[in-house]
């Protein structure tokens, strides 16, 4: 019941009801619980027909950037390890 996935706001009507796109599916949600102004293109979390809050885009991008760094660091570590393993085999002909 709690597994709400992010959705993009595509339309807002005069009753404070937004049309959102959730993985290609369009749904209507109430914006009555939203404290901040919501605009077209914003990402929101939906729960039982209501938007609960906006997703902080900058923050999400920052997290994704951190994951990219972790992947790169892992890659480098792995490369270094395989070189070291290779160095350890100097004795071979």
């Amino acid at each position, binding site marked *: *019941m*709690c*597994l*709400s*996935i*992010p*959705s*993009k706001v595509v339309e807002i009507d005069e009753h404070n009801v937004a049309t959102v*796109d959730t*993985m290609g599916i369009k749904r209507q*949600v*109430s914006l*009555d*619980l*939203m*404290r901040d102004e919501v605009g077209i293109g914003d*990402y929101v*979390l939906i*729960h*039982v*027909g*209501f938007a*609960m*809050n906006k*997703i*902080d*885009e900058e*923050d*999400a*991008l920052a*997290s*994704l950037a951190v*994951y990219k760094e*972790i*992947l790169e660091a*892992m890659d480098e570590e792995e490369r270094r390890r395989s070189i070291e393993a290779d160095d350890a085999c100097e004795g071979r002909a």
Partner: protein
Amino acid sequence: MSLQLRDLYEGFRDAEVIKALSKRITQESEALREPLHVMEVCGGHTHTIMKYGLKQLLPQNIRFIHGPGCPVCIMPKERIDHAIDLSRMEDAILCTLGDMIRVPGSKGSLAEERAAGRDIRPLYTPLDALKIARENPHKKVIFFAIGFETTTPMSAALLDAAIKAGVENLFLHANHVLVPPAVDAIMADGRAKVNAFIGPSHVSVITGSKIYEPLPIRYGTPVAVSGFEPVDVMEGILMLVRQKNEARCAVEVQYTRAVSREGNTKAQALIERYMEPRAHFRWRGIGDIPHSALRLREAYAHYDAERVFAEHLGNEPIDDHKLCICGTILKGLASPKECKVFGTACTPSTPLGSCMVSSEGACNAYFRFAEV
């Protein structure tokens, strides 16, 4: 670079990132002085952990203990019986959300009542109850409201809308429960070997991370409030490992793209306006926990199904099927596989206990995602 909707799904489910985090956790957990027993309080996290096989990606010294955070699982039979009794009243339409309809009480489930001809309607949103009330002015429309802090503001918003619209044939049966008292009850019991918490995602969106601040102080346990995606959960675990290794314990938020310390204050104000703590609420399998649930304030008693239709409702506590160990599971003291009827007499299509019904229930998640 601008954020794409796709990034929000895929970026936080990326198998490579999960693997990289798993390696980090494995490396850093070598320094742990004691095994990490992480309670993921929320059933949504239990679901993610099972679905993505996160247990298998963690070292031996990190274990999950599944918590009580599934709103369907903790509903005691006598409350489900209330729903059934209300649906049997003359001219009644009973509405509720999601899996609630399949949970067995002592008189069967709402689904069985519906098959027997009662007007019982599963809703997509609480607001639909208002629409139904308006379309059926001569009927009593009862919204059987369930859920943790995440779903409470939506019930309050429904009441708010009903009052503003002057609708008087809509009633709420409030079963809104609170996370902190339940966690306190489990920790005070002392038997669950929990020494770290993954804090719920969407409860925290509403309440803010501040509600967990007493936990590190009272129990010396670090808390990482994490999102529901597998990358979120793994990063949360890494944060807990680091806190332990640095001998710190604090509330940290991994899910910063959605959770602030203060939470959604507008939603909180709406709850405050219409609801108040109950002195007592019985949790299925766990028992009575003081101040662990909400009810409508006295001023709105005429919208409260429990007060208005009190003469139809029983109040005797009703215990679970004697083979069912949901209670022990909800307290973090057993795993579903320890139940004798798990996967045999009790399956998602023939649930004996509530933990098998909801997709957030531990038994259901084990049944669907683990090799049975």
